[in-house]
């Protein structure tokens, strides 16, 4: 029995427009998101990349509305046409159950005193009213889908008996059980070793394609995002500074920050060159300087950059937030 309604493939499943979020600390409101605008279509995978504090996790949370207490959100957040911010109570719960959230550390995110089977079938049994036996069957099936061997045995085990990689597969399987339209993956592989990482990513990718899901993949690793997702959005100081097709990001990144990120990573195919070092340190949204938030660290910065706040605009098959975009980039690819 599918919970989701008809999915139009042309209108975006997720839509964020000028979303800002503040958290109350003591007497003040501190911004954590300043200006985020994104779209994700059905069957599409969007990667959100940024350093700690850039607001990437927060963005995912606004989509699911899993925000810490004393947070206020402005702007439009739409999922499958529904305005998320206006939901409450039962409709909010319903909305949340339509989305699958995969968290970073599976060991911490699964209740340690209950069995895996219990964890997986909880929503089915309690919210959808499915009979426990049937729910367990479905769970075993889902485990098989993500490549877990002897699923019946796993269902009876406790989380502390399984490895991190296995637990993350369980998380994914559980998410898929709920037949979601959207999957939000918040650094799902950061806590795993590299081999397991690639396995888990492969599973996510396959499931996404098979079921035509919208996937939002959050990571600090630009390479990973480009490998997994169709498009990548880069965030800095609580703002989206660039969105671009993943294939194009390495050669054709148009925001100085993105270019610096690309350049800072050693790759196998380029000949030895100096790695880019970005001077200074990343800035929290609350500490952002006037004008462009990146300008103190930008090699292309001019006087105007400190005065004018750049807007995220379409540019060259993507979007960029930079007032100098027309001046900096020439038609051919930049320096090697």
């Amino acid at each position, binding site marked *: 029995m599918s919970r989701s309604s008809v999915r139009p493939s042309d209108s975006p499943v997720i839509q964020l427009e000028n979303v800002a979020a503040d958290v109350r600390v003591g007497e003040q409101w501190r911004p954590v998101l300043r200006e985020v605008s994104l779209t994700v279509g059905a069957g599409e995978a969007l990667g959100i990349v940024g350093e700690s504090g850039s607001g990437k996790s927060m963005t995912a949370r606004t989509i*699911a509305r*899993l925000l810490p207490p004393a947070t206020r959100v402005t702007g439009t957040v739409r999922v499958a046409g529904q305005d998320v911010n206006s939901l409450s109570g039962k409709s*909010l*719960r*319903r*909305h*949340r*159950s*339509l*989305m699958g*959230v995969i*968290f970073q*550390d599976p060991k*911490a*995110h*699964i*209740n*340690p*005193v*209950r069995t895996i089977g219990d964890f997986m079938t*909880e*929503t089915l049994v*309690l*919210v959808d009213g499915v009979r426990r036996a049937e729910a367990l069957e479905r769970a075993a099936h889902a485990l098989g889908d993500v490549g877990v061997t002897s699923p019946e045995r796993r269902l009876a085990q*406790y989380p*502390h008996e399984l490895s991190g990689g296995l637990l993350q597969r369980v998380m994914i399987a559980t998410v898929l059980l*709920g037949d979601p339209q959207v999957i939000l993956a918040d650094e799902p592989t950061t806590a795993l070793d590299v081999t397991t990482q690639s396995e888990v990513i492969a599973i996510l990718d396959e499931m996404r394609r098979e079921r035509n899901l919208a996937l939002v993949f959050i990571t600090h690793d630009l390479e990973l995002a480009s490998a997994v997702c169709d498009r990548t959005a880069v965030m800095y100081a609580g703002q989206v500074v660039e969105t671009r097709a993943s294939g194009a990001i390495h050669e054709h990144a148009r925001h100085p920050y993105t270019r610096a990120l690309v350049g800072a990573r050693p790759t196998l195919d380029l000949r030895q060159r100096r790695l880019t070092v970005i001077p200074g340190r990343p800035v929290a949204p609350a500490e952002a300087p006037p004008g462009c938030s990146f300008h103190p660290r930008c090699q292309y910065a001019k006087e105007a950059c400190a005065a004018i706040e750049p807007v995220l605009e379409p540019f060259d098959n993507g979007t960029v937030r930079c007032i100098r975009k027309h001046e900096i980039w020439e038609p051919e690819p930049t320096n090697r």
Partner: protein
Amino acid sequence: MPKYLFQRILLAVAALLISSFVVYSALYLMPGDPIANLTGGRHLPPEALDALRQRYHFGDPFLLRYVEWLGGVLHFDFGRSVIFNEDVSSIVADKLAVTLQLVGYAAVILTLLGLALGLIAGLKKGVTDSIIVAVTSFLAAVPPYMAAIVALSVFAVSLGWFPAIGAGDSGTRLLHLTLPAFALAASSLAIVARVTRVSIRAESNREHVQTAVSRGLPRRQIIVRHVLRNASVPIVTVVGVTVASLFAVSAVVEQAFSLDGLGAMLVQAALSRDIAVVQAIALLYVFAFILVNTLVDVLYAFLDPRLRAKKELA
């Protein structure tokens, strides 16, 4: 799981044996002639003294006497009281009922009220929470006999809502035991509430609760299945420990309210050097303590599978 249970019971039995040894030997290690201690210094004719010696096997080596006593205990024979010249078991039996009722009543109060207050404070924030914290902090510092005296003074004497003396007969038992039970439970209740509050708070902030929220589960389900369930281990510990120690403390409350229970008997026997009675009651208290603690440990294993694994490895 069975392995864990077995280990735990073994430990309990060991503790009981050692405790019984301590109880028994403490009184016989007393300075002076055991007979004199037994009779409390009263003078008896030589034949009577001889008979006593025979009866209590004072000629036998200490360990043998201990084993015999232990054997008797297992058959519920605690020997005879010198003072009352009756079997200790029959003397103790009636008092036991009163004490058990008092402790049971107090246990119920401290568990239900303590949990309730702790839950409310843990889940709600703001004024309600602050009030509960203040009240429980105060109560935790008031020892049972103090609570007993205050309760006696205010509710029994001044207001006259409750009887001040005695345990009443079967009809009025509940009424008579209410004040004592509350006095006994007061400080333990506060501790249970405190621990409950802290555990609930801690569990509510855990990541797996986030997961449940993200799946759209109703709040009540989340609280019961994830917060409470996981917080139960420290809560059960504290409830267990406090209930276990209620027995020993009940003596004081019994004294304050002139209840005819084990505690009063114990004090009287101690003052009159009625050894057999003291031994019997002390042993009962210790037994209750160990029993409750063992039950708590067993309950743990059901509540948290990780503990099972850890303890079995140890």
